[in-house]
């Protein structure tokens, strides 16, 4: 090995070390930024101790024919949430649907990782991945699309152990100051539905309610459009029982 080659290797190693140091510092700084952003969003949401909201629930699932229904949702800190339909039978996606704004972001025992930038409904957002530290948590991973300017979660993609992956898209209006959405669209995967004709006693040829493409993608959607909120007026615990 000649001297020129040796000095090149030394310089190369120094440079590599320097780049690594810069990289680690940048990552650490980015993680700090993201944590600070999540903390700010959390603080905004934290203004709401409880709320009662009225709205309309639309269900769009290929094999379900369900009319639009009026609903009421109740929330109380830290994680009490209840959705009630005014009378009658309600059909809601299992588990995941009880996830509300507060529980989306308020789990403290999670690590925030920056995952770049994204655009939701034409709004530039920061993508943050939340990894729960608790190994037994039902939520495996939550990806949040945060509007940095207004400190609002525009979209959340949550993967759970029991109920698969679901997307929540949030649209804000007059209650944006409290980080409470006017519209929530909840999308999730559905399984096949088929009952033997011997069970339903329907031997005549039936036509499917939706077109074949809708049945193929097996994506279900539930949409809630909130008309009004009553915020921080107190709610009896009995509502959640």
């Amino acid at each position, binding site marked *: 090995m000649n001297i020129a080659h040796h000095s090149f290797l030394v310089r190369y190693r120094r440079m590599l070390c320097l780049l690594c140091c810069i990289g680690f510092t940048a990552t650490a700084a980015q993680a700090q930024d993201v944590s600070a952003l999540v903390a700010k969003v959390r603080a905004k949401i934290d203004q709401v101790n409880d709320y009662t909201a009225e709205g309309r629930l*639309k*269900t*769009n*699932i*290929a*094999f*379900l*024919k*369900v*009319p*639009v229904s009026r609903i009421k949702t109740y929330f109380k800190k830290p994680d009490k949430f209840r959705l009630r*339909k005014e*009378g*009658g*039978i*309600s*059909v*809601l*996606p*299992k*588990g995941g*649907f009880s996830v509300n704004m507060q529980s989306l972001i308020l789990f403290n025992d999670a690590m925030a990782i920056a995952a770049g930038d994204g655009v939701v409904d034409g709004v530039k957002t920061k993508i943050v991945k939340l990894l729960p530290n608790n190994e037994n948590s039902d939520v495996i991973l939550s990806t949040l699309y945060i509007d940095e300017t207004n400190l609002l979660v525009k979209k959340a993609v949550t993967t759970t152990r029991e*109920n698969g992956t679901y997307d929540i898209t949030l649209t804000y209006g007059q209650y944006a100051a409290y980080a409470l959405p006017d519209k929530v669209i909840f999308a*999730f995967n*559905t*399984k*096949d*539905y*088929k*009952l*033997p*004709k011997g*069970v*339903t*006693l*329907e*031997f*005549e*040829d*039936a036509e*499917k*309610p*939706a077109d074949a493409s*809708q049945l193929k993608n097996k994506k*279900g959607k539930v949409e809630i459009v909130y008309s009004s909120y009553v915020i921080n007026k107190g709610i009896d615990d009995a509502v959640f029982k």
Partner: protein
Amino acid sequence: MWTILQAELFKIFKRPRTYIAFAAIAALITMVQVGMKADGDSYVKFMLSTLGGNFDVQGKIMNGYLVCYIILQMLLVHVPLLVTLIAADTFSGEANTGTLRLLLTTPYSRTQWVLAKFTAVVIYTLLLLVWLAILALVLSMAVFGTDDLFLFKSDYVVLIRENDVFWRYCAAFGFAALAMITVAAVGFLLSIFADNSIGPIVATMSIIVFFSVLSTMNIPLYNTIKPYLFVTHMNSWKEFFDERVTENNEAVAGSIQYPMRIVHSVLVLGIHILVLLGAAVWFFRKKDILS
């Protein structure tokens, strides 16, 4: 005409055989209701399991409206058999007892007798359906209460709001009346050709069973004749319990998915009744009464 109709009604309701159908319906409905009251939750659980465990369905699924639907699904296939007991006995019963000649010595025409007897059979059929409605719907509503109707079909599930259900049952029973009158017209026509009741009763039952089996077989050869069979259209009452959906798959309250299917079935059944009754009048007027 009113006098002979009264006489025919008296004859029908005097016979113990008439009440077999009422007793059979009461027994069958009570059996289903007791079963649903005792173990309805297991039935609901089984049905909900077909949703793949993806959904939380809250509310009173096992209510009077669902029980009534289950009863109608099971019973409306068999009620025609009970209708034939009386309808196929109208003329053959008279021929068997030797009163047919006597009947025709009265100052009423043969056409009037046919129409009076058919009207009496229609009244019996309607009373049977009213009895079915009282037990299956009204009693179920009283025992199980009411709520939205959550129906499990083979390929999809329909949720009909509570305030949107009752009129559907009224319409379904109205449609069922038309279907039962068609069955009665078949038995009524066959009774003209026989001198005892057994033949036309068994023949009518055989026709219903044969056509029912044919209409449930999904074979291309038979599919071409299915639309012309009255039995195929007897199940159209179920169309009242299917809602139309929007592009976003939202069910439209107060709507029917395929109203034209009902109209078509009503026309087919109506034509059957008219043709069968017309044939009965024509054959009876030509009939040589020897018994």
